[in-house]
């Protein structure tokens, strides 16, 4: 089962892993991305498109499910304001075999950085805000899956 969610609320890892049907599938890989506070960032804001963000995530999830055997796949992205340490994104991919679960997890996190309508804005301790610039390395990793 494929489950894709875009949400304002905090992502609860335990709730989502319980809900993700990992049961009899042999291998489950997960990825959690969190807000890092190491550059003096006090808040991260994720702007999204009311329809296209969720659709973009769903397209990626189905692309992964076409490419690998993934009887269970969960992809949750938070939007809005969040604090350092909070979860931005969660991927859970289950498969009969480890290589597929791990590859799907890596593919999804790589591609959602370049393919989905989401924009990060950081607020620093002095109140200044800046939009995060895309990184060339992210672009190259995402293209590596083409």
């Amino acid at each position, binding site marked *: 089962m494929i489950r894709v969610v875009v949400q304002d609320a905090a992502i609860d890892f335990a709730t989502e892993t319980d809900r993700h049907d990992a049961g009899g599938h042999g291998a489950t890989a997960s990825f959690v991305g969190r807000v890092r506070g190491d550059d003096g960032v006090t808040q991260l804001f994720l702007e999204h*498109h009311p329809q296209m963000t969720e659709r973009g995530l769903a397209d990626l999830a189905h692309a992964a499910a076409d490419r690998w055997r993934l009887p269970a796949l969960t992809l949750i992205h938070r939007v809005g304001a969040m604090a350092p340490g909070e979860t931005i994104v969660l991927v859970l991919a289950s498969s009969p075999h480890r290589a597929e679960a791990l590859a799907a997890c890596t593919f999804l996190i790589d591609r959602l*950085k370049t*393919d989905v*309508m989401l*924009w990060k804005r950081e607020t620093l301790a002095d109140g200044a805000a800046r*939009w995060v610039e*895309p990184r060339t390395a992210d672009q190259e990793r995402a293209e590596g899956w083409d």
Partner: protein
Amino acid sequence: MALQLAYFAWVRERMGCGEEQVEPPADVATASDLIAWLAARDDRGARAFAEPARIRVAIDGQMMGNDAALAGARDVALFPPVTGG
């Protein structure tokens, strides 16, 4: 041609609004033409679209190249490269 435009991230901030309806002239045939027309239209457009290479486009819910034709389009979103994850 009436178009419903949506702006995101710093494009939205520089335009001072998230959406607007526009009626570009007939020679605005592609997304790139639209970006150039908005940049020339007023100061906020000049600020938002000073670097067309940094602008991405979605037409009627599909991400497109900036050379995509606008014929038949209703909704056009203009935004910086995405930075999710």
